[in-house]
Structure formats: structure tokens, C-alpha cells
């Protein structure tokens, strides 16, 4: 490994932090904070692109690793690295950062310094969660990711920002208390925070199984709130409808889902297998419940919040199906949902800036006045509801087919019902916003369609959605090296017989080339 490979992850962690300090020190005028933040996030994004460029897919395992002692006692290591599971998530977070800065360019007018510097700290925390391979380091970044988010929601939120921030913080902070106890308990047994070591220790049965149940449950609880999984979703509607657009894009999903893959199922395979039926049931309930609630929302941010509950639950279903294909689909769907969601957020944010209303009922007939906005929105909607050839289809198809064949036909059928409902609320939203008779709100303000900077952000994302729909193999090639769900005891033999199983379902590739 050369020097760049050695230090690339550290650079990815440090550059946003350095940018944050620079922004905090910069004078608060002439958009200087914006430019510094944009530059920092672009540099970080370029740095994250180094990962897929130099990732050895054939080799698998953790790459770009660094393992240095940070604190002697308790032994906390600065151990970072990525594998197929996390690599693309790092790139996704890297991509979302400049998008977030551009989304805030005109929306954040007051005190840009505080906003951008906290936004950049938040980026560091997110990268940290994805790359940490030491449980304590991971917990540090996990907690750190809450603070800038809560402050930003409180300071830059819409009407009830402070209340939403408090709700968000408490919802996500309290479950991390049992998480920390669980981590400490593991340490007191295994005397290590190292992820791989703990994985081995748990697998070898050196740690008593009884308490391990509670430990696994504590991990799951913290992650399930963060996703959010069905009965724990109380914070998401307020957070989505209050948070600034740039933050709403990053708040849900990614961190919690990744943590489930790596630190719940990855660390406690036996316990996760036993808990899986419950999680599958909750996920399916979440899919339908989120979709039904999204149907009746009057506020489009709340609609997006419940749509997110529905879509994220689908990924939870894939994770706890514990099939190899399901996991490939899950990671792929996290990526594609991240992109689609951010496009929809950007567009809705642009509409809100122009018309200053978030009530769906106030709109109508925007398509005639804002044709470009309507086009982009429709394409993003189609991606979201899983039209073939677009990014959303691949993930949903893999997840549903793997559930159908690998888990349970009944659950797959019910989950597919949620996809239909998803099409219903999204298309109905398009219809109410862009078509029908022109509303008084739409005709009262001058029509300003998407301008050049907005198009400059949205167009690459739209192209990316298309590419993700037609060439999923490019992403899955790396993802499948990391997606190793635990196998039931009787299946181990079968897996080990085939030397390198083709993990991409063959149905996908022709689909894309059609």
C-alpha cells in the first residue's frame, strides 16, 4: 500500500474538519463561508472517489486500513478501513456534501458561518461512522453526528425548529445510552473494542450467550430509532418538516441502516437471526404504514418523511432477510434512495423558496409555469417508485425477489403492495403540484424556473440515477465483496462448495441492458 492509500481515510475525515475551522474563522461576508464550504466538500468528494478507483474488488475484506493506538487504557484504537459494504456509502456521503452546500446556497441567508462550519463537522462525523472499525471510535462519531444536526435544526429550522431539534436529539440520544453500556460490557468481557476481534470473540462463543442477547438488543434499539423502524419513527416527521433541506437529505437512513448491517447483524449473527422474524414483520408494517400515512399528508415535507419511513423499511426487510442478494440490494438501495431523495428534496426546496408554502393543497398547475422543474420532478418520482431503467428499480427488484425466494412469499407480496401504494402517493403528489388548474398561489408569484446553478446540481444527479438503473453491476461488483450475511448452520456447507458464487442475480443484468 502506498502513502495515499494509507492516509486517504484520515484525509477524508480531516478535510471537512479543517474546512469547518476555516469557515468558523472566516469573515462573515461576501459569501466567503459558502465558497470555502463548497471547496472543502468538493475536495472531500474527490478524495472519496479515490476509494472506488483503487478498491481491489478481487481481494475483498477491509482496505485502506489504518490501525493506530489512540488511548492506551482502555485500549481504543484509531482503526479505520472500508470494505464493500461501506465504500460506496462513503462516496455517497461525499457526493451529498457539495449538493447540500449548494442546496443551502440561497436558503441560508443569516449566519452562514455557523451553518457551514457545523455542516462540515456533521460530514466528518458521518464519514467517521462509515469508516470506523473500532467500536469506541464508531460510537464517538455516532454521537458526534447528533450535535451539529440538532443545533442546525434548532437555529435554521422553519417555524418550530427548536422543538423539532429537541425531539430529534432526545429520540436519538437516549437509545445510545444502552448502546454505550453494551459496548462497555463487551469490552469488559473481551478487553477490546476492535470490530474484527469482537466479531471473532462472539463467534467463538467465548462471551456468555445470555447477556449477549441484551447487548444485541441494545445495539438494535439504537439503530432502529435512527433508521427509523416502525414504532420508533416519532421524530422523523417533525425533523423532515423543520430541518433545512441540506440536513434533511442526510438525516435519515444511511447511518442507521449501515450500522445494522455492520454492527448488529455483522457482530451478533445468531441473535440477529433469532430477531429477524420480528424485524421483518416490523419492516413490512413500516412499509405499509409509512405509505398509508404518506397518502394523507397535507404538507409535502411530511409526505416525504413518511415516504422515507416506507422506503427505509423496505431496506430493513432486505437486511433481516439475511440473504446475500438481499444485502446487495439493501446497500444498492441505500445508495439509490440517497440520490433520489436528495433530488426530490432539492426540487421541493426550490419550490418552497419560490412560493413560501409547504401545503400541497395550495399548489396546482405548476407544470405550465415551471416546465423544467416539472420534468425533473417527474423523472425523480419515477425513479423513486421504481420504474425500470432508473436507479430505484434495481434495488427494489433485488430486495423483493430475494425476499420472495429466500424469505417468505407472503411477506414479499405484502411488501410489493407497499410499492404500489408508493406509486400512488408520489404520482398523486405530482398531479396535485404540477397539473390540474392553476392555483392562486401559483399565479400570484412570478414564474421563476430552475436557474443555472440549480440545474448544474440536479442534472448530474439525474444522469447518475439513470446510470444506476442501467449499469448496476458497476456498483454491485464492490458491494458484493462486503455483503456476507450470516448463513444458517445447514447452509454453510452449500456456500463453501462453490468457490466464488455469482452473487448478482442474473435477472438484473439483462434487465438493465434491455
Amino acid at each position, binding site marked *: 500500500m502506498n502513502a495515499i492509500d494509507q492516509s486517504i481515510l484520515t484525509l477524508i475525515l480531516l478535510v471537512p474538519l479543517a474546512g469547518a475551522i476555516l469557515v468558523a474563522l472566516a469573515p462573515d461576508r461576501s459569501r466567503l463561508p459558502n465558497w470555502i464550504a463548497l471547496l472543502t466538500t468538493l475536495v472531500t468528494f474527490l478524495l472519496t472517489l479515490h476509494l472506488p478507483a483503487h478498491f481491489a474488488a478481487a481481494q475483498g475484506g477491509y482496505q485502506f486500513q489504518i490501525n493506530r493506538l*489512540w*488511548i*492506551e*487504557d*482502555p485500549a481504543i484504537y484509531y482503526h479505520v478501513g472500508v470494505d464493500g459494504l461501506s465504500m460506496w456509502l462513503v462516496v455517497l456521503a461525499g457526493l451529498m456534501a457539495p449538493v447540500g452546500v449548494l442546496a443551502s446556497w440561497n436558503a441560508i441567508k443569516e449566519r452562514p458561518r*455557523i451553518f457551514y462550519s457545523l455542516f462540515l463537522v456533521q460530514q466528518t462525523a458521518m464519514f467517521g461512522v462509515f469508516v470506523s472499525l473500532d467500536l469506541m471510535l464508531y*460510537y*464517538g*462519531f455516532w*454521537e*458526534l453526528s*447528533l*450535535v451539529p444536526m*440538532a*443545533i442546525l435544526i*434548532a*437555529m435554521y429550522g422553519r417555524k418550530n425548529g*427548536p422543538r423539532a*431539534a*429537541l425531539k430529534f*436529539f*432526545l429520540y436519538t*440520544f*437516549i437509545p*445510545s*445510552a*444502552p448502546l*454505550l*453500556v453494551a459496548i*462497555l*460490557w463487551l*469490552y*469488559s468481557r473481551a478487553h477490546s473494542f476492535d470490530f474484527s476481534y469482537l466479531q471473532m470473540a462472539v463467534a467463538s462463543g467465548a462471551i456468555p450467550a445470555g447477556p449477549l442477547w441484551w447487548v444485541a438488543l441494545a445495539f438494535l434499539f439504537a439503530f432502529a430509532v435512527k433508521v427509523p423502524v416502525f414504532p420508533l419513527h416519532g421524530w422523523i416527521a417533525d425533523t423532515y418538516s423543520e430541518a433545512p433541506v441540506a440536513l434533511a437529505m442526510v438525516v435519515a437512513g444511511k447511518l442507521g441502516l449501515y450500522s445494522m448491517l455492520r454492527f448488529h447483524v455483522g457482530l451478533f449473527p445468531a441473535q440477529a437471526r433469532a430477531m429477524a422474524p420480528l424485524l421483518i414483520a416490523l419492516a413490512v408494517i413500516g412499509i405499509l404504514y409509512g405509505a398509508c400515512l404518506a397518502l394523507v399528508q397535507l404538507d409535502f415535507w411530511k409526505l416525504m418523511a413518511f415516504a422515507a419511513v416506507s422506503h427505509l423499511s423496505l431496506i430493513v426487510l432486505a437486511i433481516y432477510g439475511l440473504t446475500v442478494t438481499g444485502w446487495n440490494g439493501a446497500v444498492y438501495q441505500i445508495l439509490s434512495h440517497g440520490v433520489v431523495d436528495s433530488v426530490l428534496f432539492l426540487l421541493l426546496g426550490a419550490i418552497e423558496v419560490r412560493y413560501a408554502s409547504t401545503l400541497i393543497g395550495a399548489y396546482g398547475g405548476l407544470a405550465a409555469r415551471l416546465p423544467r422543474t416539472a420534468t425533473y420532478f417527474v423523472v425523480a418520482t419515477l425513479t423513486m417508485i421504481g420504474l425500470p431503467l432508473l436507479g430505484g428499480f434495481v434495488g427494489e427488484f433485488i430486495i423483493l425477489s430475494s425476499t420472495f425466494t429466500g424469505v417468505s412469499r407472503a411477506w414479499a407480496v405484502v411488501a410489493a403492495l407497499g410499492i404500489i401504494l408508493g406509486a400512488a402517493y408520489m404520482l398523486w403528489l405530482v398531479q396535485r403540484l404540477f397539473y390540474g388548474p392553476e392555483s392562486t398561489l401559483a399565479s400570484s408569484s412570478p414564474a421563476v424556473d430552475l436557474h443555472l446553478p440549480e440545474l448544474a446540481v440536479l442534472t448530474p444527479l439525474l444522469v447518475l440515477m439513470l446510470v444506476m438503473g442501467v449499469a448496476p453491476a458497476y456498483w454491485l461488483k464492490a458491494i458484493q465483496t462486503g455483503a456476507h450475511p450470516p448463513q444458517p448452520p445447514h447452509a454453510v456447507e452449500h456456500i463453501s462448495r462453490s468457490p466464488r458464487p455469482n452473487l448478482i442475480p442474473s435477472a438484473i443484468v439483462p434487465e438493465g441492458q434491455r
Partner: protein
Amino acid sequence: MNSVPDIFRILPEVILTLTGVAVMLIDATIPPAWPRRSLGWVAAFGTLFALWGSIWQLSLPEGTGFFSTVETSTFTVFFHVLICGIVLVAILLSLDTLPADSHHQGEYYALVVFGAVGMCLLTGAVELLVVFIALEISSISTYVLAGYRKQTGRGPESAIKYFLLGSFATAFLLYGIALIFGATGTTQIYEVAHLAPSAENHALVVGGLALILVGILFKVSAAPFHVWTPDVYEGAPAPVVALLSTAPKAAAFALLLRVVYEMLPSLHAFWSPLLWVVAVLSMTVGNLAALRQQNVKRMLAYSSIAHAGYLLAAFAGSQAIGIAAASFYTAAYAAMNVGIFAVVTLVSGYDEKLPLIEDYRGLIYRTPLLGGLLIFFLISLIGIPFTGGFFGKFYSFSAAVDGGAVALAIIGLLNSGLAAAYYLRLAVVSAQRPLDSRKQNAPSEQIGIAVGAALLLSVAATLVLGIVPGTVLHAAQSGALTLQGPSPEPAVRVLGVEPAPNR
């Protein structure tokens, strides 16, 4: 036998005493019309010198002095440095915030420094009567300081309440010492440790320990001995509270560590469940009461009760780990608490025109620096990683988990989730848009050199403890090693006839 002159064993105390005397003499000799502010600088430099003296003590061989009543070891140096650091920050804070026309400034600085003498001596004393004297020296100074704003109604109330309850608690301590002496025939801590397990009247030892614990737990404001805390903190001037809520507590915790781990480890089965209950009570009572406060200082008073509870969780750990964790927590708590009271002093002003949480509305818009610092210290108090508060809790609760008290750790961490609610309320209020009517009566919130230095010190300490806790933890651990149980060679001699062997 003592190769080290006795005076070096109490070098920081000597320096501090001389400083206090110098401050009083200068105050008495300079003309009354002259400003007294420079006395604060004298006190600050004296404290700095004492801090250097404590660090210099590391070069001494470990051992006791003055007929084995005072000890120097890594443990005492750790707490000496901590206490001198806190006092230094508190003096710097007072320099810019005490009203310039106050003519009692000489007394103020002298009392602060004399209080520090008592606290330092308390951490070094290995003889129960010296412990008692040291505790009285520190308490009497703090009683007076609590009532320093005597023109207000709350100042004297705070002082009298503190004095009455405090002297009551000290009486318990003294009674406990008497019982221990009755059971073992000695008041030297190492000898008690040797003699206590074989004491004829075991109930006397247990009773003595219980009474001593009451006295100490009062000083650290642990529930159910906490009722004085909010009233005293509310009435005392904020710079004094910065001192009051940290330094005497650090000293009292050092004493508690010495009593339970060094003097009576044989009674582990007795004090361990007791401290478990006190820890749970303190954090729960502190946090629940803090949730409902409207006054910032009262809220922070209850929060300090809760923090005493988190700290006591470390006592569930085994000797070395528990002592190290508790020492570290004391340092982390001191750094962030002094910091937040520094911010409170600046925002509320010396005469506290703005005491309520609602008054902090829009602070971050009014003075972004203070608002940012307030939020920073609150984040540390919540216990977010990369701040001192996190590692404090982390070590404390991992000591508890290591000692088998998993339930205590869970209760503690759930409590810290509860605590986040009221810390955040203050943070959120300060980030809200200001109401215009409040703007006019807000104090200027000028940050002078001395206060700037105080803030810088506390921020730096909080960050260092949060990002590179290794050094401080290492110091705490080597301190813990010097405090582990009785010395290897048993003391076979009558009290006070000959000096103890060098340990």
C-alpha cells in the same frame, strides 16, 4: 529517616498560605482609595506558583512528613494540580467580574487562597485529625465566600444555610473519626487500615465509617445530603460558585477515595452497596429536579448533584480502575463546570440581572462567542464524544461495568439521556432568535484578558480531556497505584512515637 525536609511535603500549601497572608497585608497597608484589583493578580500568581510547587513535588520520593500526617504521592499531586488549576481559573474569572468599586476584594482573594490551602491539605492528609482541620479550613473560607454579596437578600441566606448544614455535617465526620479512634486506637489512616479488620468492636468501625461517609457525601452534594446545593449556588456570586462547585468537591472526592479504598477496603461489602444507592439517588434526584428549574444556576446546581452521582458510579469498580476513573471524572467535571460558570458569570453579570433560562434567549446572536462557548460546555456536560465529559462518564461507567454493576451503568446512562433534555433546553433557548425587549437591559458582556484566559484554560482542558485523555488518565492511574491499600510493611508502633517508614 525522612530524607526529605518536612516543609517540602506541604510546599503548595505553604506557598498558598504565604500568598494569602501577602494579599491581606497588602490590602491593609495600601491607601483605601487605591483600587484593589491588583490583589487578584497577586493571588493568581501565588496560585500559579503553588501549582508549580505541586508539580515539583513529583521529583520527591513518595512518602509522608510531619510524623506521618501528610503524604506526597502521585495521587496527591494529581489533586493538588487540579485544585490549584481550578482556583487559578476562579481567580482569573473574578478579576474581571467583581465590581471595581468593591472594597472587600482583598478579603475575597485571601479567602479564596486560604480555602485552597484547606483543599490541598485535605487531599494530602493521611491522619484523620489533619483531615478534619483541613476540611474546616476549606469550609470556613467557602462559607464566607458564599455570602460575599451581602447587600442582597440571597447572599447571607446562602451563607447561613451553607454554614449551618455544613457544620452539622462536619460534626458527623468528627464523630465518625472518634468512633474509628475508639475502635482501633489510632487516627493514622494506614494504621487504621491494618487494625480495622482485627478490631474487637467491629460495629464501632462500621458506625464510624458511616458517619464519616455522611460528612463527605454532604461536601460532594450527593443525594440525600444535597438539599443545600441549589440555594447556596443561587445566592453565591457566580465566580464563587465556579469554585464552590468544583474545588471543594474534588478535595472531598479525594478524601472519599482515601477513606474507602485506603483506610477501610476491608469494609468493601458495607460501603459498596451504600455508595451504589447514593449514586443512583444522586443522579436521579439531580436530573429530575433540574428538569423543572427556571433559574440557570439552580439548574446547574442540580446538574452538579447528578454529576456527583455519575462520579460515585466509579466506586463500584475495583480499586485501581475505580480510583483512576473517579480521579479522571473529577478533573473532567471541574474543567467543564468551571467553564460553564465562567460563561454564566459573564452572561448574568455579577449582580445577576439575567438569572433565568429565558434570559439566555438569543445569546448566540447577541454574543456569538459566549453563546458558542455555552453550547460547547453544555455538550461536554451532556457527555458527547471528543469532550472531557464523555471520557469522564466513559471511564466512570466502564469502571462500574467492570466491577459488575451493569445495572448502575444503565441507570447512569439513561440518566444522562434525561439530563440531555435540560442541558439542551438552555442550548436551544440561546440559539433562538432574541426578543427585542430583552436587548436593552443585557449587560455588555465584555471579555477581558483575565476572563479570556480563564475561558481559554477551561476550553483547552475540556478538549484535551476529550481528545487525548491518555496523559491525564495515566496520571490518574499512577495516582491510583499509590493509593492502593495499606503499605506493604506493617506499621508496628505506637501512634506518633516514631515517624512512619518511607513508603
